[in-house]
Every structure is written in structure tokens, then in C-alpha cells.
């Protein structure tokens, strides 16, 4: 069984390996502990609250390689952005239609900017 997920407040001083961060939590506070983390659950209480995108990218940019889960009001329109910000696991309040997700992820062949995923921006494909 996976380790229990602790809240951001409980994480400090614990030896938990899974943590849940809310939109207002400072993801950078987790950076000293990335080695022991295997799961970061980033909550999206409302899809319009986009702070979790920055949280995810900041952790990926700091070298976090464990699971990054988007939980809450996660809709199909957000999945491509979330994937680019480093999310690789989704726990939506309302289940997503798999075919829709696939279509959304495949909609654009190229990207304009580098992010936390492996996609190469179109200018880099042009100029190397």
C-alpha cells in the first residue's frame, strides 16, 4: 500500500514520502526534500486557479522525478497544459473521457515554448 499523503503543513518535520500541496502553498519549500518524495499531489479546487501549474513546474525544474498528480477540478481542457508543466497523474473529481484526453493531447503537433516536459519548441527544431 502506498504511503499516506500528508498535507503541506504536516510534511515539515515528518518523514512522509507523499505530500499534498494546495494552491497557496510554496512549492519551493519542498525542494530540500525532493530525494525522499515519491508523490506530490497538487490540488486544483477550481480549474480557474492556475497556481498549481507553477508549483509543478518549479518542482520539475528543481529535479523532482517522482509522480506529480493533479487532483480536483481537473478538466480535459487543462490536461495538455498540465502535462507540459510536469503532471503525469490525474485524479479528477469527475472522470475524464479517455478519448477526449487523447484528442486534447494530440491536438497540436508543435509547441512554441520549452516547459517541464520533453517537447522541443518549434524554434529549436528549426535552428537546433
Amino acid at each position, binding site marked *: 500500500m502506498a504511503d499516506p499523503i500528508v498535507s503541506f503543513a504536516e510534511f515539515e518535520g515528518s518523514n512522509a514520502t507523499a505530500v499534498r500541496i494546495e*494552491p497557496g502553498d510554496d512549492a519551493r519549500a519542498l525542494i530540500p526534500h525532493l530525494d525522499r518524495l515519491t508523490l506530490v499531489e497538487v490540488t486544483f479546487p477550481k*480549474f*480557474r*486557479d*492556475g*497556481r498549481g*501549474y*507553477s508549483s509543478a*513546474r518549479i518542482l520539475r*525544474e528543481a529535479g523532482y522525478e517522482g509522480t506529480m498528480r493533479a487532483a480536483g477540478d481537473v478538466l480535459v481542457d*487543462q490536461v*495538455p*497544459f*498540465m*502535462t*507540459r*508543466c510536469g503532471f503525469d497523474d490525474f485524479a479528477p473529481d469527475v472522470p475524464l473521457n479517455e478519448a477526449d484526453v487523447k484528442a486534447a493531447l494530440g491536438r*497540436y503537433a508543435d*509547441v*512554441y*515554448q*520549452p*516547459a*517541464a516536459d520533453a517537447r522541443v*519548441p518549434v*524554434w*529549436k527544431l*528549426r*535552428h537546433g
Partner: protein
Amino acid sequence: MHAFQTSGNCIRNISSDQWAGAAADEVADPRPWAELLRQWSTLHPEFSYLPRKFKICLIASDEDRAAMRLHDIGIQLVERDGKLGAAFYVGGGMGRTPMIAPLIKDFVPIEDYLSYSEACLRVYNRYGRRDNIYKARIKILVHEIGAEEYARQVEEEFAHVKTLGIDPPLAELERISAMFAPPAFEASASDELDRSDPDFAVWVDQNVKPHKQAGYSIVNIALKPIGGIPGDATSAQIDVMADLAERYSFDELRVTHAQNIVLPHVAKRDLYAVWSALNDADLANANLDLISDIIACPGLDYCSLANARSIPIAQKIATRFADAERQRDVGELKLKISGCINACGHHHAGHIGILGVDKKGVENYQLTLGGSGAEDVSVGKILGPGFDEDGIVDAVEKAVEKYRNIREPGERFLDTYRRVGAEPFKEAVYG
């Protein structure tokens, strides 16, 4: 322009100078740099659910024709020691809480400017307010924590972001620049102009501006006939303008935020032909930047958000000042009208601004003086109690006549207001 990200809490269309690529005073053509921003911001994975919509303006001249510092981010391309860079102003805006963007960084080397933009946005995305839609724009964040603290946070974020490889190589800028290559100007085009037709000469002096290429000019078509609806043109007039653009301006025509049209590249030898065709189509209004060159939002005539009508006020004011000589004597005077506090008519930035409000079911108009959307940017201040529809027209005239009486040589309305303050105008209007 594109139709991507035209709504939602994302980075919207980048705005720039309507004379870009033509203006005699630009340090570089801002359009390739704006396009680079457009690409970077399109489907940006991190910044598509910001606290609120986000508008960026990029100009390349000291003269600001795009209200740069009234945007969420205003960028001015500048040169220092022969190198191109970007000055960043962050946290401006109009609407119900008008603010002028403070300078956050005076020189960002141009090879860093997307990374710096990313840092600006990341700080906003993380810390911009999300509890109240009216306090969610970046101007509120910058105002609440202070420009210095915001700049410090951006600097810290930038030090990290710069390592991520966000800035494309110069080769990409060069690829984009080729799409904005100057048209095939005639190198030997004559700079001479036959000004013997006095009506033509008046129009040239008011509406035609210097071009960076010798022998060429920037033509501004003021869609502001006296008594007409600001910015309106008939289908026949649009055909005329399209034909003129095709024939005399390398097939290029631009729409400006001041509700006018620009033909950016007209050879001086063609100016008379262009003017004649415009004149035949009632499009040769020689009132650019004069009091009848009014910006007006659609107002209650069309808009479901409006509290008051804007267009009839604009029509009445223009009619009151129909005398062309009096207008020219008054000189540059930017009058802007909004029919509600959303400020689509940019009244905060008007030398004279008019805001229509609803007062117990009756349209009421507040008068503000001293605003500017140019390089001498400022937010206008309310002069006093509001007026009804005819009262506001009288009040504008009284303020303008006061200015004519007390101005010093060379002063525009705005300069006089700044010198003497509101009191003399209050006295003239309410006295």
C-alpha cells in the same frame, strides 16, 4: 493580430505602435519582437489560468503612441551602448482602478527578454490575488507589495528561469523579421511636396507624419467627421481605403486604438492623389489629435455593460467645435469618452475624459482632466460633480476656453492644466 487567446485569463494579443516599421523615431521595428512574445505566450502551459487577463504592449520609440504604461506589462525597446534591450514597466491598467505601470527594470538585454517576461508572469501567477475579480490584475499585486519588492521577486525568479533555455537564438528573430521586411521602397523617391492646395496643406500638417524612409510618409485617416460616429466608416469608404492601401501603401492598412486608420507607407509624390481620393469619400478630416478626434466606446447605444451613451456626447462635442480654425487654435487635445467604469473609451488617459454613469436611472457624465496615454502618461482627475448630456458639452467648452485664455505660448491644454492645476478650470466650469 490573431484570434488566439482573445478571452480567458491568459496572455492576450500583444499590442504595439500603429506606426511600427514606419515611424522615423523607432530604435527597431517592434513587430518581430512582439511576434516573438506572441509565440512564447501562445498556449503557454503555465500562464493560461492566470488570476486575470493579461495584456502586454511593446513599443520602440520614446514617443508612446500605444498607451504602453497602461498595460499589465509595457515594454519599450531601447538602445544602450549600441545594444538593444527592453525596459519593463509592470502593473499598469485602466478600468475601475487606473494605474500607471512603474519601471521595474530599465534595461533587460534583448537576449533575455522572454525569460524576464516569464519571471514577471510567474511571480504574478503565484502571488496575484484570486479572491476578488476586481483585485486580480497584476496592477493590484504590484501596488500592494510595491514596485521594488515585485522587482526583487522577479529578479530572483529570473536568475532561475534564465537557466531553463526559454530564449530562442537570434536566428529565430531573424526568421520572424523576414516576415516584417520593409516593402520595396523606391530609394530615390522625392521628398518634395507641392503644397499649393491649401486644404491639402492643412491635412498634411495635421494628419501626415514622418516616415523613416526618405520620400515616404505615414498617412493617418481620421474617421472623425464632425457630428459622425467616432471610428465608423461606410462600406463604400472602406472600399476606398482598401483601394488606396493597395495602390499607394504596399497593400497595408492598420486600425488604431484611437479609432482611426493608418496607411503606413505612402510615397510623398502620391500624397495629393491619396488626399484627393479621401476627400472625395469624405475621409480627409484634418483633425488628427484635435478635440474632435474623440475616442468613444459604443456606450449604451450598443453595449449591454454601459451605464450611459457615449456616441451622442462625442457627436455633440465635435459639433460644438466644428469650426476647424478654432480646433487648430486649441491644438492637441485628446478627448476620450467611456460609457461605464470599464473604461473602454480610455477616459482616464484623456486630456479631457468623460465617464458616463447611471445616477438614479438618469445618465450622468463626469469630467476628468489631465490624463495622458502618451510618454507623459498620467491618470485624469475628476473635476467636480457630473453633468447631464448637454451640461457636459458646455463644461468641456468652458474648460477649453479657460485654457485658451490662460495658456502660455506653446502650451497644450494638458500642459496648462499641469501648470495651473484644477482650480482655474473648476472655477470656469462650475463658477
